[in-house]
């Protein structure tokens, strides 16, 4: 059972990090960023090239992933989403745009990085094996980094001027504008930050799970599940959603293994019942 809990916590930390960027963009702009998984994949491939191919330090590679994705996210917001939001009053326009960018990224990533699964050398060798728990050290490192990033992100949103501005925007865009918040600027920063989180997560996890061009869609779907559980647009909700999903997977795959692949069937059924009772997820409205 210790192993099952450790697996769940580790998976949860991974998932929470994936969901954070998505929920930030949704909270700020009411945009369901279908390209979030593809941004994760792009981040993974950048780390693969910088660390795996060029041989630069892993930290540099993950930073390169984060910076590149922040730039990509900022440009997407400035030249795509901002334009569409200003010109169209229909919410589905941004959804279509997000879906189109997802397909676009899929195609570009396939073209540039190829179709193969790619991986990089382990960042830390060895396995922790004690107290009934087996956990490779690299997973522990990635789990700790994920936890630090999550805490750092929460602190950034709570205690910095841009963080407060973004929270204000998410709560009430018009009121924030009336109070002097530069809406365009902070929306762009928020989108770039969300994209950066996706890139950093992809970069971190490429050292454990590798990356291939076809996984963007499934990652987006899982991220959507997490924010549905926790409550879309709520940072703490995304974290909770990530840990709940991670734990459900870990427990389900152990307890239900005799019945075939019913773990996700059970998770989806539970999610449907849960959403019919709490349609806004656990944490309700944006930023609580």
């Amino acid at each position, binding site marked *: 059972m210790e192993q099952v809990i450790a697996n769940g916590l580790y998976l949860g930390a991974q998932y929470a990090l994936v969901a954070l960027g998505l929920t930030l963009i949704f909270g700020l702009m009411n945009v369901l960023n279908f390209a979030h998984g593809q941004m994760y994949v792009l981040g993974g491939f950048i780390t693969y090239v910088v660390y*795996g191919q060029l041989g630069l330090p892993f930290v540099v590679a993950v930073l390169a992933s984060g910076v590149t994705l922040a730039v990509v996210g900022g440009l997407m917001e400035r030249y795509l989403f901002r334009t569409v939001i200003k010109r169209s009053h229909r919410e589905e326009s941004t959804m279509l745009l997000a879906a189109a960018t997802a397909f676009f990224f899929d195609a570009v990533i*396939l073209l540039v990085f190829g179709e*193969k*699964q790619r991986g990089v050398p382990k960042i830390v060798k060895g396995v922790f094996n004690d107290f009934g728990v*087996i956990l490779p050290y690299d997973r522990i490192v990635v789990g700790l980094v994920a936890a630090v990033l999550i805490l750092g992100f929460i602190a950034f949103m709570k205690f910095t001027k841009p963080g407060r501005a973004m929270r204000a925007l998410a709560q009430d865009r018009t009121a924030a504008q009336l109070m002097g918040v530069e809406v365009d600027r902070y929306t762009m920063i928020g989108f770039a930050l969300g994209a950066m989180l996706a890139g950093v997560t992809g970069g971190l996890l490429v050292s454990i799970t590798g990356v291939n061009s*076809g996984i963007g869609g499934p990652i987006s779907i899982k991220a959507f599940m997490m924010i549905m559980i926790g409550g879309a647009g709520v940072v703490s909700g995304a974290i909770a959603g990530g840990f709940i999903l991670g734990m459900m997977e870990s427990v389900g795959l152990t307890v239900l293994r005799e019945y*075939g692949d019913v773990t996700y069937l059970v998770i989806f059924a539970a999610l449907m019942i849960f959403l019919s009772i709490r349609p806004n997820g656990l944490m309700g409205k944006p930023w609580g």
Partner: protein
Amino acid sequence: MNGVLISRRLLLASACAAALSLTTLAAHAADAKLKIGFVGVTSGPAAAWGTSNVRSMQTLAAWYNELGGVKIGDKTYELEIVTFDDQKDPKRAVEGMEKMAQEGIHYVVGPNVDDGAAAVRPVAEKNGIIYIPYAFPKELYSPPASNAILGMIANYQSGPAIYKYLMENKGVKKVAFVAANESDPLSQRDSGVAAAKALGLEVVAEKDTYQNDTRDFTPVLTPIVGLKPDLLVLSGVAPANAPLLIRAARELGYEGLISTETAQDAKVLEEGAGELANGFISVGGASTPEIASDRMKEFVERYTKMFGEYNDESNTKVYALDYILETMKANPASMDNVDEFKKTVDTFEAPNPYLKDPNAKLKYVGSTSFGQKRQLAVPMVVNEYKDGAFQTLFVGTVD
């Protein structure tokens, strides 16, 4: 100035003359185009399966075209490979096969997976298309079906051979199976379980599955590793998932053997699992350094030059196009009449250019498994991964 102009005109005239003569030469070299199709997966986790098909076909086509084309009957044909990525989606596979029919193509390589191969059957039969899937359902190749020809060794042919070898040589007694929750891996798992039980092996896990898009397999493998099997079979595992599963199993402390009946990619294993993948057993491409002919070696060189890297699986995938072309050469009427092709299949034999053995033949087999000859005869090579490359464990044949 005038001199410069004259020189330019001369240069232009010479270039035109050269282009014209090259065109005339090409026209002499090939009388017409022969289109061969590919419908299969070239993106996503299983992309390596289809990509190795497409690249093998493209390498061979470029090679033949460079030599002036392929002579079938009285005519010489320039080869054109028409490709369609079905994304491992049976609906898209049907679209792909319809596209081939619209283009008047009668010979298609692919699809790469069971549900895709089953889905295209009505389209292929209705439009007179012979297709070469890399999928294992027996009903595709058994009467009344007659348009599909299995392009590789099936898992129900290789599985028993591998288990028997491991029982006799490595003392395997307990086996655990794990498969993705998709039709191909599940059917391969079921036939693997049946084969293992028939051999007298104790099957300690046969229902464990995972979603194909799983990124971290530790929770999936934790309970299986606890059962301490001697052999962990990754039924129908996609090349992208194999290193992740191997890594997770080894990191959880699993010390037994790991095998699969699907072909894998050494580079992907090396990057994804490194030395943890050492000892991993898989069905390899149908060639080894010991049995490869010079032509096979040149094919590998050309492929590597064209695409930057080689996939061992292409040792099997290289055969499909040659089987189609050689059968057409044996009966040119089969070019646009697949009934003629089917008649030729029963008696067809040609030298196998990819094997050193001068007596090796290209021929259709499968009578034992399917009741008719609906399988390409290719060597069954079982590999063991070691430090970035596959080493031959043993070579076998099937009828």
